[in-house]
């Protein structure tokens, strides 16, 4: 069809619609002209004028009929009918404002909640990652039964990179924050050491300057750094000549090699983790130091871009083959390991997917309940309008026409509800994002956008059809004679009506119970989480991290610095204990695992004795509040002049010395230990899990800071006060400034905040599911109220009769209540069965609660029945308030 013609057609239709009056007049004029021509012809043929006119009219046929047919040809009838239905629907909505408000509010809330949750899902799960061809990016880990996702050893990585055929590029990265000094206040920035090709893997390119090459991986080749756009703007005033400039990071000279464009998002990482997003400010080259034969330490995270057409499974198979190959060359280091290749998308959103889908399910149930409720309300109104429908049918309105009218009405309601829902969604999304658990992936991409609006429209339309269908079918089924004769009530079809509405209400109560049980289970696990003993004392505790640049602090100087810092902090009034250590509870963990020998024991075949190792200063445990189980904490005397001391946690003591006292036992990390290489366990401390909801604590040991073989340049500081820990921040800053004004104190946070962030996922899920469950219960209560009110109005006469025959008000009330509670009971039974069946969905979100928790199931049932009884109470009272004489006459 050519364009011109399409345009003509559209124009004609619009004209027929918009200027109907004019079109009709023209048609009239046209036919009249024809009539006059005919008359003139008749006159010319010699007829008398009157006869000429009537003959012409006769020949023309029915004028109205012609006009009607022409109208049909304009094909605007459907649209005109639609307008008429729409106006009618608007008028009838306006006539019953209470009905309109309830139904619109119900729909707006439930559609809005759906849109809000959907916009989170759209932003987090559906939107592609912000890298070109992101589906080819994968994360690469080592994998074993004990360590499902373990980082790589740099030299293994280098061999993978040289030998693989699956990857277009392969890169490694590891956390390396740097302190910028020289321009203003010293400040520590989140940084990563990256191998050459890191940005190629992501498909990104510096906006200025260039990325690192393999030349930068050679130790001693001069340090380069790439800045984030944010850092470049804030600390370097967007200097266009920044490339090549020398800057001081960790007291070392670095040359600026490049500036990344805005929108350079970190892919997220596991160890010393930084969330996905624009969270990184500095990238500097990873240099391969040390002996390639020593492959025991794993700290490099792998990321790669697959070649076109290569799947992650195929890449994983190749990596496994490479590991087998390398294991032949380095048997001690690589035996027992496998490769794990996961698409980056899964790695980023995987953990939140379950939570989001559960929320979408919950909010979808709310929408279903809202639909049932809307259908119920419409059915109630349809009953009131049965007479009207019957009259219209009697006057010749077709069933299709009546159905269309009812559907127009429900669609109109749904669409207005949808429009209101959008505003609820906009407000809801803002609230949701502010409630999101700490570190939730891609939170910044959550907006109400066109996709969400389209979703809302779709949901509104589907809802309108869904809840409009029952009343529409009902309208089409109206029996004209019955209805007209019965005056619109008390007929057989009304009984069927009540049955349909009862089924809807049972369904509503069932779904609401399902949600309530979900909310109840989440509440129980949240309470469990809060009540669980954290293993340390988070209150009154301030934490921070400090990094001593290698360039200015030799190991001995670093030790001296930590000693002076803790001593000076201890002397501050209001500080009860201060200590430094490599790790803090619940802040993410570094899987530093070391194998060791236990005096007088042999490990089981193919296993070794191992535990995570940490470093602690004498005051560390007291400051963090980890309890001493046996023995002693470290003291100032645990230095190089003293015998080597060690503190282990309870789980390690139990595992390796199951029926003995671990205290005084000795272990060593040396393969051929001399007497001085043995470390004696001087203390056993309580267990702390990685996260509050981790299944169990990991085995761990601590070296005294003065005796540790590992670097002590980066430490976490723990300061315990007696009141609000935020007040201690200035004391801490002052103490550090007095020792070294060039140092930046980073990550100053009260432990309470960290603890809070750790339960935020559970709280988020609980809040939303509880909100939805509350909404569902309210809707179900409205539904029960509606049905029982209707039933009562139908039985007014019967109740009058009963009371006239001597029934007490209480008897009648019980009768009504029984009817309502019966519906509620059926609904509750349905809900309980459903909840048992769906329990597995929730399981992973629960903490120490069975998905079939009897307490939750019982209390939810009781609550639902109580609410149902309450909803019946008003109609029940109304039932007994009628005067029997009046009721009997009411027919």
């Amino acid at each position, binding site marked *: 069809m050519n364009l011109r013609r*399409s345009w003509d*057609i559209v124009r004609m239709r619009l004209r027929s619609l918009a200027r109907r009056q004019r079109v009709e007049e023209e048609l009239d004029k046209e036919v009249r002209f024809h009539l006059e021509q005919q008359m003139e012809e008749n006159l010319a043929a010699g007829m008398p004028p009157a006869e000429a006119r009537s003959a012409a009219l006769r*020949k023309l*046929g029915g004028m109205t009929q012609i006009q009607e*047919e*022409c109208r049909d040809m304009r094909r605007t009838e459907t649209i005109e009918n639609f307008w008429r239905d729409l106006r009618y629907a608007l008028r009838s909505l306006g006539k019953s404002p209470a009905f309109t408000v309830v139904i619109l509010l119900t729909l707006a809330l439930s559609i809005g909640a759906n849109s809000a949750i959907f916009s989170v899902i759209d932003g987090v799960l559906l939107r592609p990652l912000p890298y070109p061809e992101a589906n080819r990016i994968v994360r690469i880990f080592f994998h074993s039964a004990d360590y499902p996702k373990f980082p790589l050893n740099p030299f293994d990585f280098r061999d993978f990179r040289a030998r693989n055929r699956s990857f277009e590029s392969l890169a490694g990265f590891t956390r390396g924050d740097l302190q910028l000094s020289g321009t203003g206040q010293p400040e520590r920035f989140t940084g990563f050491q990256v191998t050459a090709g890191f940005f190629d893997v992501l498909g990104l390119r510096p906006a200025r300057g260039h990325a690192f090459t393999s030349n930068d991986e050679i130790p001693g080749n001069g340090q380069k750094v790439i800045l984030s756009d944010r850092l470049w703007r804030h600390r370097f005033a967007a200097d266009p000549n920044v490339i090549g400039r020398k800057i001081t990071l960790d007291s070392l000279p670095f040359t600026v090699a490049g500036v990344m464009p805005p929108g350079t998002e970190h892919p997220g990482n596991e160890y010393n983790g930084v969330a996905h997003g624009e969270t990184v400010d500095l990238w500097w080259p990873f240099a391969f130091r040390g002996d390639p034969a020593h492959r025991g330490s794993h700290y490099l995270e792998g990321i790669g871009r697959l070649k076109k057409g290569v799947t992650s499974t195929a890449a994983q198979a190749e990596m496994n083959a490479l590991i087998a190959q390398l294991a032949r060359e380095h048997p001690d280091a690589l035996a027992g390991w496998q490769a794990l290749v996961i698409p980056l998308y899964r790695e980023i959103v995987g953990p939140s997917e379950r939570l989001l889908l559960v929320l979408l399910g919950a909010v979808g149930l709310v929408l279903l309940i809202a639909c049932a409720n809307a259908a119920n309300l419409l059915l109630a109104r349809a009953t009131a309008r049965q007479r009207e429908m019957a009259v219209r049918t009697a006057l010749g309105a077709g069933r299709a026409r009546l159905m269309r009218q009812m559907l127009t009405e429900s669609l109109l309601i749904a669409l207005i509800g949808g429009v209101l829902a959008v505003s609820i969604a906009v407000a809801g999304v803002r609230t949701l994002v502010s409630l999101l658990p700490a570190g939730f992936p891609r939170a910044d991409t959550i907006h109400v956008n066109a996709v969400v609006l389209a979703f809302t429209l779709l949901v509104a339309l589907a809802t309108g059809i869904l809840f409009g269908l029952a009343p529409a079918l009902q309208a089409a089924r109206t029996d004209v004679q019955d209805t007209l004769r019965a005056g619109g009530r008390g007929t057989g079809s009304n009984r069927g009506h009540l049955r349909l509405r009862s089924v809807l209400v049972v369904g509503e109560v069932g779904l609401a119970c399902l949600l309530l049980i979900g909310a109840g289970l989440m509440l129980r696990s949240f309470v469990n989480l809060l009540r669980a003993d954290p293993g340390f004392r988070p209150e009154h505790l301030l934490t921070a991290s400090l990094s001593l640049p290698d360039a200015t602090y030799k190991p001995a100087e670093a030790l001296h610095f930590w000693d002076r810092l803790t001593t000076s902090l201890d002397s501050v009034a209001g500080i009860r204990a201060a200590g430094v250590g490599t790790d803090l509870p619940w802040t993410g963990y570094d899987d530093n695992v070391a194998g060791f020998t236990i005096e007088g024991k042999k490990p089981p075949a193919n296993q070794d004795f191992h535990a995570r190792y940490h470093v602690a200063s004498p005051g560390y445990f007291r400051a963090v509040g980890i309890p001493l189980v046996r023995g002693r904490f470290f003291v100032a005397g645990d230095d190089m002049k003293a015998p080597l001391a060690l503190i282990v946690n309870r789980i390690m003591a139990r595992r390796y010395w199951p029926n003995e006292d671990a205290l005084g036992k000795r272990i060593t990390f040396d393969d051929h230990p001399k007497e001085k290489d043995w470390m004696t366990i001087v203390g056993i401390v309580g267990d702390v899990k990685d996260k509050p909801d981790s299944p169990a604590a990991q085995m761990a040991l601590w070296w005294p800071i003065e005796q540790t073989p590992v670097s002590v340049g980066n430490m976490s500081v723990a300061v315990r006060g007696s009141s609000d820990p935020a007040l201690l921040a200035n004391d801490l800053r002052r103490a550090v400034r007095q020792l070294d004004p060039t140092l930046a104190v980073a990550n100053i946070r009260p432990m309470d905040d960290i603890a809070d962030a750790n339960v935020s996922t559970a709280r988020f899920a609980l809040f939303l599911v509880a909100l939805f469950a509350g909404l569902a219960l309210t809707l179900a209560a409205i539904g029960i109220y509606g049905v029982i009110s209707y039933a009562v109005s139908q039985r007014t006469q019967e109740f009058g009769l009963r009371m006239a025959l001597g029934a007490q008000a209480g008897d009648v009330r019980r009768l009504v209540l029984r009817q309502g509670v019966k519906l509620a009971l059926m609904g509750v039974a349905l809900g309980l069965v459903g909840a048992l069946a769906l329990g597995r969905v929730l399981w992973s979100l629960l903490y120490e609660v069975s998905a079939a928790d009897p307490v939750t199931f019982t209390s939810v049932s009781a609550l639902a029945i109580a609410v149902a009884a309450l909803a019946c109470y008003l109609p029940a009272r109304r039932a007994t308030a009628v005067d029997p004489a009046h009721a009997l006459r009411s027919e």
Partner: protein
Amino acid sequence: MSKPSDLIQGTLDLLILRTISLEPKHGWAIAKRIEQVSEDVLQVTQGALYPALHRLEQQGWIRAAWRKTETGREAKFYELTKAGRAQLERELAQWERLSKAVGLVIRTAEE
């Protein structure tokens, strides 16, 4: 549709398009012209003519404009659009084919 003078719908469209293909005409003139040319065999009733005109207009084959007739009266004149002209060609070809085919069947049946 038992009267022989009744026109099947598609044919009326073709006749109208053909009749106004030379010059714009108003409804009355179209009906008259069809009757004259067909020597009064084809009678176009007004009840069929005006709906057909409206339909063709809605479909974009013809367009209408109010003009003065020779006698100085206002009348609605119809003329072919470009698309309508192409449509006429198609319908004519179709008609030729159809009538030829019908003719063949009838003649063969006689033998």
